[in-house]
């Protein structure tokens, strides 16, 4: 099958790659670009473990074709921390023990970042509603919600 040339921006860096038209963004991220932070839990858009931000919109990368990101910007979990340190969400996830096995964590972090980008001061209900597309089987969500609340407070203060 003929491969398609795609140029885009991944975590702020310009990238280009060749992919088959059938390949999902998740597959290209993991298998071709070596960005394995985005996880595959279901490959049908139901678990959110592969969440990425595509031009400001939260998407399941398993439901996006890689060719669709031509000219667009992608943020994955690998793009949250900087050389200066962890993103406040990452820090609060650690402080609150918001991960047990950690497989859903990249998706939650990306989804929570997308939420705070849209709504810097969400209520508990807004957080729960926004994160309802991300499944966690270990924590019962309590400590995840608290981490997002605390990160929101920290980021509002420093903003």
């Amino acid at each position, binding site marked *: 099958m003929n491969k398609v040339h795609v140029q885009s921006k991944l975590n702020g860096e310009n990238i280009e790659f060749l992919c088959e038209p059938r390949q999902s963004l998740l597959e290209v991220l993991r298998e071709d670009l070596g960005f394995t932070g985005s996880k595959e*839990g279901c490959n049908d858009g139901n*678990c959110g473990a592969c969440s990425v931000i595509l031009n400001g919109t939260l998407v399941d990368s398993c439901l996006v074709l890689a060719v669709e990101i031509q000219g667009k910007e992608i943020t994955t979990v690998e793009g949250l921390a900087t050389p200066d340190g962890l993103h406040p969400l990452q820090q609060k996830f650690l*402080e609150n023990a918001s991960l*047990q096995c*950690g*497989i859903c964590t990249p998706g939650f972090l990306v989804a929570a970042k997308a939420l705070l980008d849209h709504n810097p001061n969400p209520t508990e209900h807004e957080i729960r509603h926004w994160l309802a597309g991300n*499944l966690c089987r270990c924590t019962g969500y309590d400590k995840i919600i608290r981490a997002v609340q605390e990160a929101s407070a920290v980021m509002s203060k420093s903003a």
Partner: protein
Amino acid sequence: MSDNSENGKYKVIGTRPIRHDGAEKVIGKAIYGADVRMSGMLYGQVIRSPHAHARIKSIDTSKAEALEGVRAVVTSKDLPKTNEDDMIDLGEGMTRLKYIRDNILASDKVLYRGHAVAGVAAINQQTAEEALSLIEVEYEVLPAVVNVIDAMKDDAPLLHDTLTTDEMGEQTDKKSNIAAHLQHKLGDPEKGFKEADIVIEHEFHTATVHQGYIEPHNGTAIWNPDGQLTIWTSTQGAFVVQKQVAAVLDHPISKVKVVPTEIGGGFGGKIPIYLEPVAALLSRKTGHPVKLLMTRAGVFEGTGPTPGSYVRLKLGADKSGKLVAGDCYLAFEAGGYPGSPMFCGCMCIFACYEVPNAIVNGYDVVVNKPKSAPYRAPGSTQVAFAIETMLDEIAEKLGMDSFDIRLLNAAKEGTRRVDDLVYPRIGCVETMEAGKASDHYNTPLEGPYRGRGVATGYWFNIGFKSCVTASVNEDGTVNLMEGSTDIGGSRTSIAMQFAEVLALPVEDVNPRVGDTGEIGYNDVTGGSRTTYATGYAAYNAAQDVKAQMIEIAARHWELSADDVEFTDEVFKSKKDSSKKLNFKELAKIGSADDSPVIGKGSVNLGFHIGGSFATNIVDVEVDPETGKVTILRFTAIQDAGKAIHPSYVEGQMQGGSVQGIGWALNEEYFYNADGKMENSTFLDYRIPTALDLPMIETIIVEVPNPTHPFGVRGVGEANIAPPPAAITNAIYNAIGVRFRELPMRPDRIIAALAAKRESEPLEAVAGS
């Protein structure tokens, strides 16, 4: 963050440090099973049976093998030849080797939809998937049986030609789907019932549910030409994978190395092996590393689940509410091969209470569903649903408070259980007392269609085998090598116990989970044993390091070791108070002049090592229009013995509670008449989401476990047992209907409300 260390008794234990493996997990760099990548790696897929029960007449792989990009196809013919009577013990008693091999790749029959039949390796995932459609399997479809009651009938279709019932340890010659019958008896149940003032009896049904971990199963294997096989997999126990793979492939255990990757959830479901031997066979055939990843449908249809169950329970009580007799009949669906946690159900049914006269009969029954796997307190949730809702019924008849009837009957030290175990010090009463005294229980719940329920549950907790090694570095930090899969922060809980002994900052202890070539044997992360047993091994290793460090100090000061002590966080001479060194100073001296310090801890802590009890309080609201049950408030209470890292203890309690909530309200396998699962996606098999829940309040009770140096009781499991019963009791108090079947789906709630209106047309249904 609060610091739970008791008035300075502990320096590290009871604090809430950030986990050692945390940073790499939040930046997306931790390597899970699916992230493994090898040079020249091929990708594999497994073809699964579309039928619930069928005889395999033939498998033609030639078209698949001819497809461009396909490197190999394997079927059961690639496994060693198995005789019908070959038996093997993989740690859970003698089992037929044929059952174990057939569950990896079916030979003569498929016993459930999703049963693996063949594996393919190809240059990429897509080619492997394409090849699956070219494998031609000819089946003779047989009638399927997917319900435990039907499977026990005399005219039921038989799954196995050779299976006969094990009747309390004796093999009978009766061919049956009943693999085993177990009985426990205590006192004189018949007499007890005669003397009872109240006797009630009910039947209960629970649906098949899945562990539901977010990471699908995976396995990557390299079979080198010298016969050395290395497997990377996310598993709850690398050594158990090693043992099982060696048995399945008839390969020397010394030639099988298992490297445990980070693991994305397990809850018991990642103890059995599925893909690992298939990846190994494909690697042997191709000479390349082969990676297999399971699809989500494959996870639902081919792994786990926990058994659907039928429980019939009769309870007798006197006028004061004291239980005088119990009689339980329980039958669990084992899935395609024998081995449900029926025996655990038998142990757990009366485990929270003193029932002086009791009998329990348990049946392990094969049905055309995936071979069941452990799931968090296996078998306990099913039986807690029965006894905890019936206790509430007795309390109601007697006008008693829900906690008062439980406290009146609660098991305590010295209570003899139906399976003849006599309890050591346990914290059952304490969890109930904490519930009764809680803010939640003492806050009135008001409003129509709202109700509150309570329940208690139990898990026995195992000890088993663990070992660790601890190497002291020049700078006084320590590398702690352990062999227990870290599935939820246990690395840190184990390091904390090591650090406590030597008064080290926990950040100076670097825990790592080793592979089967790097550390001695460790049993699985399961049975709520890891923080308890591997923590105990770490405690012993720290004592060993301490003794060696004392030797170094003694040599340095030219004293005998007896004249050196470790107190107040420093090594010091008993003879000269000016001679003292802290751990770091002494490590530096030792690294210059002495042999390297390597401590070891190795334990085998047996079976019953002090169980954990969990009590729940839950408030619900039922929507009479839609039948939806909303959890308004939930409090989880559990005896942790001693909480090493309270945040991760709370996490276990919250996570287990929410799995129990899902079991109660949403989760079930839907089968059609042909035995095909019809909801094998996360959309249709609906686990709780963030939006379905309130915060889960936690109360950690600490009744120290006398068998552990810090008093630890494992907290991984008991927490899943009470929620379905507590929610059932809450729903009763909301709408006056007692459910005896799980899950309590909206359609069942609506039907029950309608039936209630029909039978009581003039009575208000709720709001009383």
